[in-house]
């Protein structure tokens, strides 16, 4: 049976629904020995800002039950280094590339998108989990109006490039934020980013991260992610890309069942760099076993009531 694994995100067609999550696959080529990027639906690169960011002091990692907290502080090489040194070899390798961007204001996001519009990136992913300098440090992604402004600025600057807004689970009404992104012209939304968390060292009476607060990822966040993806997929007409705690093909297929168009693999790749490919292979095996020749028969097929 010939399987059709392709997925459409607006004008962009992905080879298959498995992508890497930003910040867990470097700039796309570091892990090629274990996971050739051209075999994946897309590679989403580490978030870049207008200028390089140094990130947070260490310790930056604390493992927790079924998950991990990270406090990298969005350390990155900066936009120009990304465009000039990281992007060309990744495109030359045949990968579909989604560039993840982060900024502090709609204006910064607009400038990032304008520069990327002139490059070979296939899509832009807009991380709105960073603190909003204009409104006092609250995550931009917590507020529908702030997300609408950022998505609008990207829409105006990105030319013909499709873009997806990566939502934060911190929003009190994630569907309202997703709808704001859709209305502002986003091609798709992706969710979830990490959940803020705290880990402490009881004997030393200290936080385990230098930054005190970190972002929780891994299997522990999966039920939260699945619920938010289900809610957004039910409410939106644009595609929803699901992520958060996916470690197996079954996890990935569950996200598709609740309505995700495609999925991203994050922390699982840190555990085993082959994870995205293993998951893709096992999705194929499952489809063969179930007699599905394309995923549209599963997508959003969750039975309620």
């Amino acid at each position, binding site marked *: 049976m010939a399987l059709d694994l392709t997925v459409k995100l607006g004008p962009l067609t992905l080879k298959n629904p498995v992508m890497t999550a930003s910040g867990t696959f470097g700039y796309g080529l*570091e892990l090629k020995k274990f996971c050739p990027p051209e075999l994946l639906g897309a590679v989403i690169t580490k978030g870049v800002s207008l200028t390089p960011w140094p990130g947070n002091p260490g310790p*930056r*990692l604390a*493992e927790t039950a079924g998950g991990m907290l*990270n406090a*990298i502080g969005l350390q990155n090489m900066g936009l120009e280094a990304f465009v000039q040194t990281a992007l060309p070899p990744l495109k030359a390798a045949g990968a579909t590339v989604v560039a993840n961007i982060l900024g502090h204001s709609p204006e910064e996001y607009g400038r990032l998108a304008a520069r990327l519009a002139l490059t070979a990136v296939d899509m832009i992913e807009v991380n709105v989990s960073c603190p909003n300098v204009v409104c006092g440090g609250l995550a931009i992604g917590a507020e529908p109006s702030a997300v609408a402004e950022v998505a609008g600025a990207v829409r105006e600057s990105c030319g013909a490039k499709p873009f997806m807004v990566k939502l934060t689970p911190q929003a009190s009404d994630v569907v309202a934020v997703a709808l704001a992104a859709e209305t502002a012209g986003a091609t798709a939304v992706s969710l979830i980013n990490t959940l803020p968390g705290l880990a402490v060292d009881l004997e030393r009476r200290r936080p385990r991260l230098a930054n005190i607060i970190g972002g929780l990822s891994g*299997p522990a966040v999966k039920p939260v992610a699945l619920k938010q993806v289900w809610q957004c997929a039910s409410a939106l007409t644009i595609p929803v890309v699901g992520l958060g705690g996916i470690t197996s093909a079954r*996890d990935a297929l569950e996200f598709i069942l609740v309505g995700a168009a495609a999925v991203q693999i994050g922390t699982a790749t840190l*555990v*085993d760099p082959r994870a995205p490919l293993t998951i893709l292979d096992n999705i194929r095996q499952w489809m063969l076993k179930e007699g599905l020749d394309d995923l549209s028969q599963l997508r959003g097929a969750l039975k309620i009531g």
Partner: protein
Amino acid sequence: MAAELDAVITEAGVLDNRPLSAATRLLVLDCPAVARAATPGRFVKLRAWPGPEENLGGPLLDRPFSIHRAEGGQLSLLYRIVGPATRLLSEVSPGAQVRLTGPLGRGLPEALTRRSGLYLVAGGIGLAPMALARDWLASAGGQATLFYGERTAAAQVEESWLKTWAGQDWVATVEDGSGYGRPGLVTEPLAQALQREARPIFACGPWPLLAAVANLARRYSAPALVSVEAGMACGLGVCLTCSLPLAVGGRFRACQEGPVVDALAVDWGAA
């Protein structure tokens, strides 16, 4: 951009997993693929429990361990039980399989002139990489003097076992004054030796020890290489959890530009 990875991911058979002190174990693995490429100071990441995809609980992340020795297709690790992952590892019996990814990171520089010898400085389980460093020096006629410090006698590895690889040229210290060796800190005999002859140093152990070694190296104008530790999620250079500060500003990845780095390159005052 990252150097080409020469690591492999492989299952390795456990040949031995035996106690050398109350909390220290020697794990011997049948693993020619990693043993072949092992050089002193490089490390592996290891998993001796189910992967997250099996949904059986257990630690999420693999754990990093220095390569203790590599000989004839066998790879050994020296580890201390400090938490859940190392406890699970201590329960693994000969015949079982563990998953290894490695060798990872940068070890002692190839260009090091081995014949001028090294002072090997180990704080606690920082003893782990010293055996391979000693073998490597010996193969080029270089002399190694080992300085091995522990806090308590209970933590010290069996003296008879230490002698099997460290030969005659070693000094042990123990802070509580019991056990074998001299009472006090490992930096005391090291400072005396540096005063006599300023040989290059290779040190591994807790951050404060490495910072003290960096100071001694500066004082005696001895080159010093240190193996640094940081929490590592991927061990492969992509997640940036293991980042440490450089003396000149900026940061480096302990798993990629390290774990073995020039002691003077590190900003010991920060973290």
